[in-house]
Protein backbone atom coordinates (compact mmCIF):
# COMPACT_ATOMS: atom_id res chain seq x y z
CA UNK A 1 0.00 0.00 0.00
CA UNK A 2 1.13 3.53 -0.75
CA UNK A 3 -0.12 6.95 0.30
CA UNK A 4 0.44 10.04 -1.85
CA UNK A 5 -0.07 13.62 -0.76
CA UNK A 6 1.07 17.16 -1.52
CA UNK A 7 2.13 19.45 1.29
CA UNK A 8 4.65 22.21 1.85
CA UNK A 9 5.37 22.43 -1.87
CA UNK A 10 6.40 18.77 -1.98
CA UNK A 11 4.94 15.66 -3.58
CA UNK A 12 5.32 12.89 -1.01
CA UNK A 13 4.83 9.15 -1.47
CA UNK A 14 4.81 6.81 1.52
CA UNK A 15 5.34 3.09 1.11
CA UNK A 16 3.43 1.94 4.14
CA UNK A 17 4.83 -1.53 4.76
CA UNK A 18 8.51 -0.79 4.17
CA UNK A 19 8.40 2.60 5.88
CA UNK A 20 10.00 4.23 2.84
CA UNK A 21 9.42 7.92 2.11
CA UNK A 22 9.88 9.29 -1.40
CA UNK A 23 9.92 12.85 -2.68
CA UNK A 24 8.83 12.85 -6.30
CA UNK A 25 8.17 15.21 -9.19
CA UNK A 26 4.74 15.71 -10.77
CA UNK A 27 5.24 13.03 -13.41
CA UNK A 28 6.35 10.38 -10.93
CA UNK A 29 3.53 11.39 -8.56
CA UNK A 30 0.95 10.70 -11.26
CA UNK A 31 2.64 7.55 -12.55
CA UNK A 32 2.88 6.00 -9.09
CA UNK A 33 -0.83 6.67 -8.65
CA UNK A 34 -1.61 4.73 -11.85
CA UNK A 35 1.09 2.07 -11.54
CA UNK A 36 -0.91 -0.77 -10.00
CA UNK A 37 -4.10 -0.29 -12.02
CA UNK A 38 -2.90 0.57 -15.53
CA UNK A 39 -0.56 -0.95 -18.13
CA UNK A 40 2.78 0.65 -18.94
CA UNK A 41 1.48 1.73 -22.34
CA UNK A 42 -1.62 3.33 -20.86
CA UNK A 43 0.42 5.17 -18.22
CA UNK A 44 2.90 6.44 -20.80
CA UNK A 45 0.10 7.66 -23.05
CA UNK A 46 -1.64 9.38 -20.14
CA UNK A 47 1.56 11.17 -19.12
CA UNK A 48 2.35 12.35 -22.64
CA UNK A 49 -1.18 13.63 -23.00
CA UNK A 50 -1.14 15.43 -19.65
CA UNK A 51 2.37 16.88 -19.91
CA UNK A 52 2.56 17.18 -23.71
CA UNK A 53 3.16 20.91 -23.53
CA UNK A 54 6.30 20.47 -21.40
CA UNK A 55 9.60 20.14 -23.26
CA UNK A 56 11.22 18.20 -20.43
CA UNK A 57 8.61 15.42 -20.45
CA UNK A 58 9.44 13.18 -23.40
CA UNK A 59 8.57 9.55 -24.02
CA UNK A 60 12.13 8.59 -23.08
CA UNK A 61 11.78 10.55 -19.88
CA UNK A 62 8.48 8.87 -18.98
CA UNK A 63 10.06 5.48 -19.68
CA UNK A 64 12.97 6.35 -17.42
CA UNK A 65 10.57 7.32 -14.65
CA UNK A 66 8.65 4.07 -15.09
CA UNK A 67 11.87 2.11 -14.69
CA UNK A 68 12.75 4.02 -11.53
CA UNK A 69 9.39 3.03 -10.08
CA UNK A 70 9.97 -0.61 -11.05
CA UNK A 71 13.42 -0.54 -9.44
CA UNK A 72 11.98 0.76 -6.19
CA UNK A 73 9.23 -1.85 -6.25
CA UNK A 74 11.78 -4.62 -6.84
CA UNK A 75 13.95 -3.24 -4.03
CA UNK A 76 11.02 -3.47 -1.61
CA UNK A 77 10.54 0.28 -1.30
CA UNK A 78 7.29 0.75 -3.22
CA UNK A 79 4.07 -1.28 -3.21
CA UNK A 80 5.52 -3.50 -0.49
CA UNK A 81 2.94 -6.12 0.53
CA UNK A 82 1.75 -6.40 4.12
CA UNK A 83 3.24 -9.63 5.43
CA UNK A 84 3.13 -8.64 9.09
CA UNK A 85 -0.22 -10.01 10.24
CA UNK A 86 1.14 -13.44 11.30
CA UNK A 87 3.45 -11.69 13.78
CA UNK A 88 0.68 -9.49 15.20
CA UNK A 89 0.67 -11.16 18.59
CA UNK A 90 4.39 -11.92 18.71
CA UNK A 91 5.59 -9.01 20.82
CA UNK A 92 2.84 -9.42 23.39
CA UNK A 93 3.28 -13.20 23.44
CA UNK A 94 7.02 -12.82 23.88
CA UNK A 95 6.50 -10.39 26.73
CA UNK A 96 3.47 -12.07 28.32
CA UNK A 97 3.15 -11.14 32.00
CA UNK A 98 5.93 -8.56 31.66
CA UNK A 99 5.03 -5.13 33.04
CA UNK A 100 7.36 -2.22 32.36
CA UNK A 101 5.33 0.93 32.95
CA UNK A 102 2.93 2.15 35.61
CA UNK A 103 0.81 5.25 35.85
CA UNK A 104 0.68 5.87 39.60
CA UNK A 105 -2.44 7.75 40.61
CA UNK A 106 -0.93 9.23 43.73
CA UNK A 107 -3.84 11.66 44.14
CA UNK A 108 -7.48 11.22 43.26
CA UNK A 109 -8.11 14.81 44.11
CA UNK A 110 -7.25 18.14 42.57
CA UNK A 111 -6.89 21.79 43.50
CA UNK A 112 -8.41 22.83 40.18
CA UNK A 113 -11.94 22.23 38.95
CA UNK A 114 -11.55 21.97 35.17
CA UNK A 115 -14.91 21.17 33.62
CA UNK A 116 -13.37 19.33 30.65
CA UNK A 117 -11.31 16.98 32.85
CA UNK A 118 -11.60 13.36 31.66
CA UNK A 119 -10.91 12.31 35.26
CA UNK A 120 -13.93 14.19 36.69
CA UNK A 121 -11.83 16.77 38.52
CA UNK A 122 -9.35 14.10 39.55
CA UNK A 123 -11.83 11.87 41.37
CA UNK A 124 -12.37 9.42 38.49
CA UNK A 125 -16.07 9.25 39.38
CA UNK A 126 -15.18 7.94 42.85
CA UNK A 127 -14.00 9.15 46.22
CA UNK A 128 -11.21 11.61 46.84
CA UNK A 129 -8.07 9.84 48.03
CA UNK A 130 -4.30 10.06 48.31
CA UNK A 131 -2.06 7.05 47.72
CA UNK A 132 -0.15 5.97 50.82
CA UNK A 133 3.57 5.21 50.69
CA UNK A 134 2.77 1.56 51.48
CA UNK A 135 0.50 1.20 48.44
CA UNK A 136 2.98 3.01 46.20
CA UNK A 137 5.87 0.88 47.47
CA UNK A 138 3.87 -2.27 46.76
CA UNK A 139 3.16 -0.98 43.24
CA UNK A 140 6.89 -0.45 42.64
CA UNK A 141 7.63 -3.94 44.02
CA UNK A 142 4.94 -5.34 41.70
CA UNK A 143 6.62 -3.58 38.77
CA UNK A 144 10.09 -4.83 39.72
CA UNK A 145 8.84 -8.40 40.17
CA UNK A 146 6.98 -8.48 36.85
CA UNK A 147 9.44 -6.60 34.67
CA UNK A 148 11.26 -9.66 33.36
CA UNK A 149 14.40 -8.74 31.46
CA UNK A 150 13.32 -5.14 30.84
CA UNK A 151 15.97 -2.66 31.93
CA UNK A 152 14.02 0.59 31.50
CA UNK A 153 11.02 0.92 33.80
CA UNK A 154 8.68 3.90 33.61
CA UNK A 155 6.59 5.43 36.35
CA UNK A 156 4.38 8.46 35.80
CA UNK A 157 3.12 10.34 38.84
CA UNK A 158 -0.40 11.24 37.86
CA UNK A 159 -3.73 12.28 39.29
CA UNK A 160 -5.70 14.34 39.95
CA UNK A 161 -2.89 16.60 40.98
CA UNK A 162 0.13 14.54 42.09
CA UNK A 163 1.77 17.44 43.91
CA UNK A 164 -1.06 17.26 46.46
CA UNK A 165 0.79 14.12 47.61
CA UNK A 166 4.32 15.38 47.08
CA UNK A 167 5.85 13.79 50.20
CA UNK A 168 4.78 10.33 49.02
CA UNK A 169 6.11 11.06 45.52
CA UNK A 170 9.51 11.87 47.02
CA UNK A 171 9.48 8.77 49.22
CA UNK A 172 8.55 6.53 46.29
CA UNK A 173 11.32 7.92 44.10
CA UNK A 174 13.84 7.38 46.90
CA UNK A 175 12.61 3.82 47.37
CA UNK A 176 12.79 3.04 43.64
CA UNK A 177 16.30 4.50 43.38
CA UNK A 178 17.38 2.32 46.32
CA UNK A 179 16.30 -0.80 44.40
CA UNK A 180 17.76 0.08 40.97
CA UNK A 181 21.25 -1.29 41.41
CA UNK A 182 20.36 -4.59 43.07
CA UNK A 183 17.62 -5.25 40.51
CA UNK A 184 19.61 -4.09 37.47
CA UNK A 185 16.87 -1.65 36.47
CA UNK A 186 16.65 1.99 35.49
CA UNK A 187 13.58 3.97 36.53
CA UNK A 188 12.38 6.83 34.35
CA UNK A 189 9.99 9.03 36.27
CA UNK A 190 7.60 11.56 34.84
CA UNK A 191 5.31 14.02 36.57
CA UNK A 192 2.12 15.54 35.17
CA UNK A 193 1.08 18.69 37.04
CA UNK A 194 -1.24 21.68 36.82
CA UNK A 195 1.50 23.80 38.39
CA UNK A 196 -0.43 25.33 41.28
CA UNK A 197 1.80 23.78 43.97
CA UNK A 198 5.15 24.24 42.23
CA UNK A 199 7.73 25.84 44.53
CA UNK A 200 11.52 25.78 44.78
CA UNK A 201 11.48 22.39 46.51
CA UNK A 202 9.36 20.89 43.72
CA UNK A 203 11.57 22.47 41.05
CA UNK A 204 14.78 21.10 42.60
CA UNK A 205 13.26 17.65 43.01
CA UNK A 206 11.62 17.48 39.57
CA UNK A 207 14.72 18.69 37.78
CA UNK A 208 16.87 16.18 39.62
CA UNK A 209 14.65 13.09 39.47
CA UNK A 210 12.11 13.43 36.67
CA UNK A 211 13.10 12.34 33.16
CA UNK A 212 10.19 14.38 31.90
CA UNK A 213 7.68 16.81 33.35
CA UNK A 214 4.34 17.50 31.71
CA UNK A 215 3.01 20.96 32.54
CA UNK A 216 -0.65 21.70 31.85
CA UNK A 217 -1.12 25.02 30.05
CA UNK A 218 -3.77 25.71 27.42
CA UNK A 219 -2.05 28.72 25.87
CA UNK A 220 -3.76 32.11 25.84
CA UNK A 221 -4.89 33.36 29.26
CA UNK A 222 -8.54 33.68 28.24
CA UNK A 223 -8.52 30.17 26.74
CA UNK A 224 -6.75 28.60 29.71
CA UNK A 225 -8.91 30.34 32.31
CA UNK A 226 -12.14 29.35 30.57
CA UNK A 227 -11.79 25.77 31.85
CA UNK A 228 -8.82 25.65 34.22
CA UNK A 229 -10.28 27.30 37.31
CA UNK A 230 -10.10 26.64 41.04
CA UNK A 231 -13.09 25.80 43.22
CA UNK A 232 -13.80 29.50 43.71
CA UNK A 233 -14.03 29.88 39.94
CA UNK A 234 -10.78 31.83 39.60
CA UNK A 235 -8.57 31.21 36.59
CA UNK A 236 -5.14 29.71 37.21
CA UNK A 237 -3.06 31.20 34.35
CA UNK A 238 -1.56 34.11 36.33
CA UNK A 239 -0.57 31.80 39.18
CA UNK A 240 1.05 29.01 37.20
CA UNK A 241 2.81 30.65 34.25
CA UNK A 242 5.63 32.24 36.32
CA UNK A 243 6.12 28.91 38.12
CA UNK A 244 6.33 27.00 34.85
CA UNK A 245 8.80 29.54 33.48
CA UNK A 246 10.98 29.21 36.57
CA UNK A 247 10.89 25.39 36.44
CA UNK A 248 11.70 25.25 32.73
CA UNK A 249 14.50 27.80 33.03
CA UNK A 250 16.09 25.77 35.84
CA UNK A 251 15.59 22.52 33.93
CA UNK A 252 18.36 23.10 31.40
CA UNK A 253 18.30 20.49 28.67
CA UNK A 254 16.10 17.97 30.47
CA UNK A 255 12.83 17.03 28.81
CA UNK A 256 9.58 18.80 29.51
CA UNK A 257 6.32 19.38 27.67
CA UNK A 258 3.84 22.20 27.91
CA UNK A 259 0.69 20.16 27.49
CA UNK A 260 -2.39 22.02 26.33
CA UNK A 261 -5.89 20.94 25.39
CA UNK A 262 -7.86 22.59 22.62
CA UNK A 263 -11.64 22.47 22.60
CA UNK A 264 -14.65 23.95 20.84
CA UNK A 265 -13.57 27.24 22.42
CA UNK A 266 -10.23 27.35 20.59
CA UNK A 267 -10.00 25.28 17.41
CA UNK A 268 -7.64 28.10 16.32
CA UNK A 269 -5.07 26.58 18.68
CA UNK A 270 -2.08 27.90 16.73
CA UNK A 271 -2.62 31.17 18.61
CA UNK A 272 -2.12 29.22 21.83
CA UNK A 273 1.05 27.63 20.48
CA UNK A 274 2.25 31.13 19.61
CA UNK A 275 1.42 32.29 23.14
CA UNK A 276 3.50 29.48 24.62
CA UNK A 277 6.40 30.42 22.36
CA UNK A 278 6.07 34.06 23.43
CA UNK A 279 6.31 32.89 27.05
CA UNK A 280 9.63 31.19 26.27
CA UNK A 281 8.44 27.58 26.08
CA UNK A 282 9.72 25.48 23.16
CA UNK A 283 8.65 21.89 23.93
CA UNK A 284 4.94 21.82 23.20
CA UNK A 285 2.11 19.33 23.08
CA UNK A 286 -1.37 20.58 22.23
CA UNK A 287 -4.08 17.93 22.04
CA UNK A 288 -7.73 17.80 21.02
CA UNK A 289 -10.14 17.38 23.92
CA UNK A 290 -11.44 13.84 24.40
CA UNK A 291 -15.02 13.90 25.66
CA UNK A 292 -18.56 12.80 24.88
CA UNK A 293 -19.92 14.22 21.57
CA UNK A 294 -22.61 16.31 23.30
CA UNK A 295 -20.21 17.93 25.76
CA UNK A 296 -20.00 21.74 25.41
CA UNK A 297 -16.22 21.49 24.98
CA UNK A 298 -16.43 18.86 22.20
CA UNK A 299 -15.05 19.72 18.77
CA UNK A 300 -17.72 20.02 16.08
CA UNK A 301 -17.36 19.07 12.42
CA UNK A 302 -16.84 22.77 11.65
CA UNK A 303 -14.13 22.95 14.34
CA UNK A 304 -12.30 19.99 12.84
CA UNK A 305 -12.03 21.75 9.47
CA UNK A 306 -10.32 24.64 11.27
CA UNK A 307 -8.09 22.26 13.23
CA UNK A 308 -6.90 20.56 10.03
CA UNK A 309 -5.91 23.95 8.62
CA UNK A 310 -4.21 24.84 11.89
CA UNK A 311 -2.10 21.68 11.74
CA UNK A 312 -0.80 22.70 8.31
CA UNK A 313 -0.13 26.26 9.44
CA UNK A 314 1.67 24.89 12.49
CA UNK A 315 3.95 22.86 10.23
CA UNK A 316 4.66 25.99 8.18
CA UNK A 317 5.49 27.92 11.36
CA UNK A 318 7.84 25.17 12.53
CA UNK A 319 9.58 25.15 9.16
CA UNK A 320 9.93 28.92 9.16
CA UNK A 321 11.30 29.04 12.71
CA UNK A 322 13.70 26.15 12.17
CA UNK A 323 15.18 27.89 9.15
CA UNK A 324 15.44 31.10 11.19
CA UNK A 325 17.37 29.28 13.92
CA UNK A 326 14.48 29.40 16.42
CA UNK A 327 13.16 25.83 16.37
CA UNK A 328 10.53 24.40 18.67
CA UNK A 329 9.13 20.93 19.23
CA UNK A 330 5.53 19.84 18.77
CA UNK A 331 5.09 16.41 20.31
CA UNK A 332 2.98 14.91 17.55
CA UNK A 333 5.31 16.17 14.83
CA UNK A 334 8.27 14.36 16.34
CA UNK A 335 9.01 11.49 14.02
CA UNK A 336 12.35 9.79 13.56
CA UNK A 337 12.45 8.24 10.10
CA UNK A 338 15.70 6.38 10.70
CA UNK A 339 15.31 5.48 14.37
CA UNK A 340 11.59 5.06 14.86
CA UNK A 341 9.81 2.05 16.33
CA UNK A 342 10.22 -1.45 14.91
CA UNK A 343 7.36 -3.29 13.23
CA UNK A 344 6.50 -5.25 16.39
CA UNK A 345 5.85 -2.03 18.28
CA UNK A 346 3.93 -0.52 15.37
CA UNK A 347 1.62 -3.52 15.22
CA UNK A 348 1.10 -4.07 18.91
CA UNK A 349 0.38 -0.53 20.09
CA UNK A 350 0.82 1.16 23.44
CA UNK A 351 0.78 -1.92 25.67
CA UNK A 352 -2.15 -0.82 27.83
CA UNK A 353 -3.48 -3.65 29.97
CA UNK A 354 -0.39 -5.78 29.39
CA UNK A 355 2.94 -4.02 29.84
CA UNK A 356 1.39 -0.70 30.93
CA UNK A 357 -1.14 -0.31 33.75
CA UNK A 358 -2.57 2.35 36.01
CA UNK A 359 -2.63 2.00 39.80
CA UNK A 360 -5.31 3.71 41.89
CA UNK A 361 -4.67 5.18 45.35
CA UNK A 362 -6.07 1.93 46.78
CA UNK A 363 -3.73 -0.27 44.73
CA UNK A 364 -6.22 -1.43 42.12
CA UNK A 365 -4.85 -2.14 38.63
CA UNK A 366 -6.52 -0.86 35.45
CA UNK A 367 -5.45 -1.16 31.78
CA UNK A 368 -4.52 2.54 31.71
CA UNK A 369 -5.40 5.85 33.36
CA UNK A 370 -8.39 6.37 31.08
CA UNK A 371 -10.14 3.20 32.29
CA UNK A 372 -9.73 3.98 35.98
CA UNK A 373 -13.07 4.23 37.74
CA UNK A 374 -14.82 1.85 35.33
CA UNK A 375 -15.11 -1.21 37.56
CA UNK A 376 -15.52 -3.73 34.74
CA UNK A 377 -11.99 -2.92 33.59
CA UNK A 378 -10.40 -3.56 36.99
CA UNK A 379 -7.59 -6.05 36.35
CA UNK A 380 -6.61 -6.88 39.92
CA UNK A 381 -4.40 -5.20 42.48
CA UNK A 382 -0.74 -4.70 43.30
CA UNK A 383 -0.76 -7.42 45.98
CA UNK A 384 -2.32 -10.30 44.06
CA UNK A 385 -1.51 -9.11 40.53
CA UNK A 386 -3.81 -9.53 37.55
CA UNK A 387 -6.83 -11.68 38.40
CA UNK A 388 -9.20 -10.53 35.66
CA UNK A 389 -7.41 -12.46 32.94
CA UNK A 390 -10.36 -12.16 30.57
CA UNK A 391 -10.01 -8.38 30.32
CA UNK A 392 -6.24 -8.65 30.07
CA UNK A 393 -6.57 -11.17 27.23
CA UNK A 394 -8.86 -8.74 25.43
CA UNK A 395 -6.16 -6.06 25.60
CA UNK A 396 -3.40 -8.54 24.74
CA UNK A 397 -5.17 -9.45 21.51
CA UNK A 398 -5.81 -5.80 20.68
CA UNK A 399 -3.42 -5.01 17.83
CA UNK A 400 -3.64 -3.14 14.56
CA UNK A 401 -5.12 -6.15 12.76
CA UNK A 402 -7.85 -6.49 15.41
CA UNK A 403 -9.48 -3.34 14.03
CA UNK A 404 -11.28 -4.28 10.78
CA UNK A 405 -11.56 -0.60 9.78
CA UNK A 406 -7.77 -0.19 9.92
CA UNK A 407 -6.93 -2.81 7.30
CA UNK A 408 -7.12 -0.43 4.37
CA UNK A 409 -5.82 2.65 6.18
CA UNK A 410 -2.43 4.02 5.17
CA UNK A 411 -1.75 5.30 8.70
CA UNK A 412 -2.17 1.98 10.51
CA UNK A 413 1.54 1.42 11.10
CA UNK A 414 1.91 4.96 12.46
CA UNK A 415 -0.98 4.82 14.94
CA UNK A 416 -0.96 1.06 15.64
CA UNK A 417 -4.73 0.99 15.61
CA UNK A 418 -5.10 4.00 17.86
CA UNK A 419 -5.89 4.49 21.53
CA UNK A 420 -7.97 1.69 23.09
CA UNK A 421 -9.58 4.09 25.56
CA UNK A 422 -10.62 6.55 22.87
CA UNK A 423 -12.02 3.66 20.81
CA UNK A 424 -13.95 2.34 23.80
CA UNK A 425 -15.41 5.71 24.73
CA UNK A 426 -16.40 6.41 21.11
CA UNK A 427 -17.74 2.99 20.12
CA UNK A 428 -18.13 0.86 23.25
CA UNK A 429 -15.35 -1.50 22.14
CA UNK A 430 -11.58 -1.39 22.57
CA UNK A 431 -11.45 -2.82 19.04
CA UNK A 432 -13.51 0.03 17.65
CA UNK A 433 -12.17 3.07 15.87
CA UNK A 434 -12.42 6.67 17.07
CA UNK A 435 -12.98 8.05 13.58
CA UNK A 436 -12.78 11.76 14.45
CA UNK A 437 -9.42 11.12 16.10
CA UNK A 438 -8.21 9.18 13.04
CA UNK A 439 -8.69 12.12 10.70
CA UNK A 440 -6.72 14.44 12.96
CA UNK A 441 -4.02 11.82 13.45
CA UNK A 442 -3.56 11.32 9.71
CA UNK A 443 -3.18 15.05 9.17
CA UNK A 444 -0.58 15.19 11.96
CA UNK A 445 1.39 12.36 10.37
CA UNK A 446 1.33 14.01 6.95
CA UNK A 447 2.65 17.22 8.50
CA UNK A 448 5.28 15.42 10.58
CA UNK A 449 6.66 13.50 7.60
CA UNK A 450 6.64 16.65 5.47
CA UNK A 451 8.74 18.40 8.11
CA UNK A 452 11.24 15.52 8.16
CA UNK A 453 11.38 15.55 4.36
CA UNK A 454 12.05 19.28 4.30
CA UNK A 455 14.79 18.77 6.90
CA UNK A 456 16.42 16.19 4.62
CA UNK A 457 16.22 18.59 1.67
CA UNK A 458 17.66 21.46 3.71
CA UNK A 459 20.54 19.25 4.86
CA UNK A 460 21.30 18.25 1.27
CA UNK A 461 21.07 21.79 -0.08
Amino acid at each position, binding site marked *: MIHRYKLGGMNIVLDI*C*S*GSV*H*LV*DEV*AYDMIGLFEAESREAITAAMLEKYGDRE*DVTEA*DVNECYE*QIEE*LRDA*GKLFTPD*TFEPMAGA*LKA*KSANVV*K*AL*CLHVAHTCNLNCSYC*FASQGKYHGDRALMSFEVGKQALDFLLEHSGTRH*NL*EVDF*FGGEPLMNFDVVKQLVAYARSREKECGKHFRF*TLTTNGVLIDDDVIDFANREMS*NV*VLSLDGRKEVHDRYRVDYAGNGSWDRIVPKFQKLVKARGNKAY*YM*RGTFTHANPDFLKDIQQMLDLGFTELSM*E*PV*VCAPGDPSALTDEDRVIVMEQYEKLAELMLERRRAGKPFTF*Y*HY*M*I*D*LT*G*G*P*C*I*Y*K*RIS*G*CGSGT*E*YMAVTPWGDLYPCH*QFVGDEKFRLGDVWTGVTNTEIQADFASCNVYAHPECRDCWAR*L*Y*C*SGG*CAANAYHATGSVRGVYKEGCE*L*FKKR*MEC*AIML*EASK*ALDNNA
Partner: protein
Amino acid sequence: MKHIQTLETRNLCESAKNGGCGECQTSCQSACKTSCGIANQQCENT
Protein backbone atom coordinates in the same frame (compact mmCIF):
# COMPACT_ATOMS: atom_id res chain seq x y z
CA MET B 1 16.59 12.83 -14.88
CA LYS B 2 15.95 11.63 -11.34
CA HIS B 3 12.22 11.75 -10.73
CA ILE B 4 12.27 10.22 -7.28
CA GLN B 5 14.35 11.00 -4.20
CA THR B 6 14.17 8.33 -1.51
CA LEU B 7 14.84 9.46 2.04
CA GLU B 8 16.79 7.38 4.51
CA THR B 9 14.33 5.46 6.68
CA ARG B 10 14.30 2.47 8.98
CA ASN B 11 13.18 -0.51 6.92
CA LEU B 12 10.20 -2.08 8.65
CA CYS B 13 10.66 -5.46 6.98
CA GLU B 14 14.24 -5.58 8.29
CA SER B 15 13.02 -4.56 11.72
CA ALA B 16 10.93 -7.74 11.78
CA LYS B 17 14.20 -9.68 11.97
CA ASN B 18 15.85 -7.70 14.73
CA GLY B 19 13.18 -5.66 16.53
CA GLY B 20 10.88 -6.43 19.40
CA CYS B 21 13.20 -5.88 22.37
CA GLY B 22 10.45 -3.98 24.20
CA GLU B 23 12.76 -1.37 25.74
CA CYS B 24 11.20 1.61 23.98
CA GLN B 25 9.18 4.08 25.98
CA THR B 26 5.47 3.54 26.52
CA SER B 27 4.05 6.13 24.18
CA CYS B 28 1.23 7.30 26.39
CA GLN B 29 3.66 8.15 29.18
CA SER B 30 5.56 10.59 26.99
CA ALA B 31 3.46 13.69 26.91
CA CYS B 32 -0.18 13.78 26.17
CA LYS B 33 -1.94 10.89 27.88
CA THR B 34 -4.90 11.09 25.51
CA SER B 35 -3.96 10.54 21.89
CA CYS B 36 -0.75 8.61 21.81
CA GLY B 37 1.28 8.23 18.67
CA ILE B 38 3.44 5.15 18.44
CA ALA B 39 5.17 6.79 15.49
CA ASN B 40 6.35 9.58 17.77
CA GLN B 41 8.47 7.12 19.73
CA GLN B 42 12.10 6.28 19.19
CA CYS B 43 13.71 2.87 19.15
CA GLU B 44 15.93 2.55 22.20
CA ASN B 45 17.99 -0.21 20.68
CA THR B 46 19.07 1.17 17.32
